[in-house]
């Protein structure tokens, strides 16, 4: 029983394409996040949702659009992919921040 699951695990696509990454958590947590880990392994927050409501939107290009159909799901859609979007994207969830996040296993996106 995977607590936070992301699909796909690997995604290779050409520049200019549109792609989506899906995330689901079965922990009953209210808050979900998207983090980006670059080639230097630096983890940086992109978005967070609390009970389907957007609460954090860092300085992320408008090409990135999160969608939360319910509190167990947080998807990430990326338009017009660029080479610089290549990274590992992690979904995470938490009942509240100070209890620690539970991370998914990541989606490695490669834009060629």
């Amino acid at each position, binding site marked *: 029983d995977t607590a*936070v699951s992301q699909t796909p695990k690997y995604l290779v696509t050409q520049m200019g394409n549109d792609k989506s990454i899906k995330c689901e958590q079965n922990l009953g947590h209210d*808050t979900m*996040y998207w983090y980006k880990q670059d080639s*230097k*392994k*630096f*983890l*940086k*927050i992109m978005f*967070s949702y*609390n009970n389907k409501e957007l*609460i*954090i939107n860092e300085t992320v290009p408008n090409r990135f659009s999160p969608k939360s159909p319910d509190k167990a799901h947080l998807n990430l859609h990326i338009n017009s992919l660029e080479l610089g979007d290549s990274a590992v994207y*992690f979904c*995470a969830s938490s009942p509240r*921040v*100070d*209890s*620690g*996040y*539970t*991370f*998914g*296993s*990541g989606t490695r996106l490669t834009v060629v």
Partner: protein
Amino acid sequence: EDQVTQSPEALRLQEGESSSLNCSYTVSGLRGLFWYRQDPGKGPEFLFTLYSAGEEKEKERLKATLTKKESFLHITAPKPEDSATYLCAVEQGGSEKLVFGKGTKLTVNP
């Protein structure tokens, strides 16, 4: 701006050789400091949360401590299975987000 600096970037130890990892931070109104472990190809795994200076937490061979400016992750008699990247993160009160350091890659040789 919040900053989290971890040192060293990489650390190689022999099995049984104890050491410490450092996380220094600058944040106003610290709400919590977090330690995570990340194995290659996997997501970070939560280890500890520390809330106030002087607090300590332990888990197996790991012990985390916190001062007003830094946190240490002490590893006692490490084993090869402790090899991983250890990430430190801080949350500023009211920010609802974690700011991560770049991590320390620990390798424990048998």
